[in-house]
């Protein structure tokens, strides 16, 4: 399925990256991606251990299982953000003047936060899941102490502060260049007659991410701080339903943004393989604006089973679940298919992974929308159907985008793919889809998610999940080793 890198220099359209150009910050971005690669692999191993334990193949004590669960969840959200930020920064810096110091500061905050979170979990025993639903962080019944809770909450806050700095910098740089966020979103072209001089797709997507993630992180900081105060002053309470709303607003927007940042790699790199530019067409601009507005209001679909939540909010949550992701996904998926169709494109690891990423994102949306139907959510919510759908568009969407970008960077060091890469690609794609499908199958037979110990009838599927996790990780390990081996050449 693969061959050597195409000569992108001769085929590069206007939106593609020009190889050989030395961009400021390339070394830091490579460091971002190296950390992303390593952490993704480590957290996948955590996932493998959890599935093996549920299958009864290995025995992990329940407290350790829930620690792994917490680390896997918060780690995957954060590292998807870091990898996405690397992709976004790398390409956005072609169009606007971003601060390399802020890029480094974000990484420093991230690493400091990771130390706090890991200490909280594996030294302090914190295991309130990545969603830290109020008031669980402060009510462990003695399983972990307030110090561990504080360390976790402060760690997540630190990671948030780093990302907030990054988005404030992208906002500054975009405003400096385009004058207003509306212009950077392409509104004059979207609502005007011509699309001449429309901002490039990278700028449009980055602007959307900037606009939605700043309030998301701010809201996340509010509930993290409230939880922190509650840990030491239990009389300081917040309404549990309000807390859930705040947490899911923050979490939903942030995780969606990881896709929106990472897909920039598809917009920039894929055209260099197909020779067809990715244009900011009117549907593209309108789709991004529509998604930007809807993704801010769709999070109540996490609260369908909170009957006390305002009904209008849950109804809105269902309607927006059907519509929020589709504009961008549809224009991106159809544009990807049109970009590749009869393009004469040669496949290599970069183009293959980027193509797979759009396939994974598109396919994963289907079971997500099914679960976004209140009547079906009633029997699917918090079953393994949920990790089933999000693993498809994260494991085979965002992760594929990240590794596609890494192969792109590695290819710039002069390295080419070989048979081992191609085998790894097939292991990853086949293993990833099968792994996710097993989750969906388990959800369909009502297996709950987040249970450390599974009942006997569920263990057959757990065993299959373990097997396919192994297959997926085998492929990913090759990606990671390849990138790390080649990344040294990129530090210059």
């Amino acid at each position, binding site marked *: 399925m693969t061959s050597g890198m195409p000569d992108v220099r001769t085929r590069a359209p206007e939106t593609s990256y020009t190889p050989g150009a030395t961009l400021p910050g390339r070394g830091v971005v490579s460091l971002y991606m190296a950390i992303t690669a390593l952490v993704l692999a480590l957290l996948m191993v955590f996932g493998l251990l959890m599935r093996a334990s549920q299958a009864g193949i290995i025995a992990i004590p329940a407290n350790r299982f829930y620690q792994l669960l917490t680390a896997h969840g918060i780690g995957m959200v954060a590292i998807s953000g870091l990898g996405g930020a690397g992709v976004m920064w790398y390409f956005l810096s072609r169009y606007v003047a971003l601060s390399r110091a802020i890029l480094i500061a974000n990484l420093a905050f991230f690493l400091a936060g990771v130390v706090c979170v890991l200490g909280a979990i594996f030294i302090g025993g914190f295991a309130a899941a990545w969603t830290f639903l109020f008031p669980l962080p402060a009510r462990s*019944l003695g399983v972990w102490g307030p110090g561990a809770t504080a360390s976790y909450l402060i760690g997540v806050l630190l990671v948030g502060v780093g990302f907030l700095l990054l988005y404030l910098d992208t906002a500054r740089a975009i405003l400096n260049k385009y004058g207003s966020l509306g212009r950077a979103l392409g509104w004059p072209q979207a609502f005007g007659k011509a699309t001449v001089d429309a901002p490039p797709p990278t700028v449009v997507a980055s602007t959307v991410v900037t606009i939605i993630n700043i309030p998301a992180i701010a809201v996340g900081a509010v509930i993290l701080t409230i939880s922190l105060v509650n840990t030491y002053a239990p009389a300081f309470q917040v309404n549990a*339903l309000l807390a859930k709303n705040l947490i899911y607003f923050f979490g939903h927007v942030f995780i969606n943004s990881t896709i929106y940042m990472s897909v920039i790699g598809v917009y920039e790199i894929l055209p260099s393989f197909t020779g067809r530019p990715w244009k900011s067409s009117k549907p593209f601009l309108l789709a991004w604006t529509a998604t930007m507005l809807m993704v801010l209001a769709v999070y109540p679909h996490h609260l369908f089973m909170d009957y006390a939540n305002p009904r209008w909010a849950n109804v809105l949550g269902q309607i927006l679940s059907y519509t929020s992701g589709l504009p961008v996904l*549809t224009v991106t998926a159809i544009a990807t298919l*049109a970009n590749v169709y*009869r393009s004469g*494109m040669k496949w290599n690891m970069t183009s293959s992974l980027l193509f797979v990423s759009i396939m994974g994102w598109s396919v994963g949306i289907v079971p997500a929308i099914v679960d976004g139907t209140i009547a079906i959510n009633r029997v699917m919510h918090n079953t393994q159907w949920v990790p089933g759908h999000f693993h498809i568009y994260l494991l085979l969407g965002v992760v594929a985008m990240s590794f596609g970008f890494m192969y792109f960077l590695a290819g710039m060091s002069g390295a080419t793919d070989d048979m081992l890469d191609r085998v790894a690609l097939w292991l990853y794609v086949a293993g990833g889809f099968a792994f996710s499908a097993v989750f969906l199958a388990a959800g369909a*037979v*009502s297996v*709950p998610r987040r249970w450390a110990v599974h009942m006997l009838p569920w263990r057959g599927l757990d065993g299959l999940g373990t097997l396919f996790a192994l297959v997926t990780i085998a492929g990913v390990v090759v990606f990671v080793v390849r990138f790390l081996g080649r990344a040294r050449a990129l530090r210059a």
Partner: protein
Amino acid sequence: MEQRIAVLVTTVLCALLLAVFALVARSASASGTAEQIAAGAARWRRTSFWALVIVFVPTIAYSLTRMPYPSASEGPASIVVDATGHQWAWELTPTAVPAGQPVEIRVTGADVNHGFGIYDAGGRLLTQTQAMPGYTNVIRYTFATPGTYRILCLEYCGLGHHTMASQLVVTAVR
């Protein structure tokens, strides 16, 4: 029923999408005129947009009539079960209800968030709601078949989450 619909819809649509991507991937080695393909893509975009509108509008409208939330017009049920989630046990009063009659289950959480999931004897999840401190969520459900139903916790609530199970006995109507 809902699980079957979910599996059927997901299987068919995912297979369709995978097939489209596979066909396009196979076509990539051939060459075509970019302008013609762009025009075709624009048609596909319009078609898929309107197809989604045509499918989504009635689906959303119909499914919203099947929401599990109790409505005020239903009136009070004669049989009431109070269910409270504690770390890590359910407190149910009473623990037995008759089949064939609407039951109102008032669910709350005493300490943290829990999830109140009702499973039938075959291990199938019938319905659920969140058990939240400070709120009472009401499930109205009519058990058609007598038997022992399991109550499992469906919201992660700490170390004993997976041990948090109870039973509700549904008796035959005399």
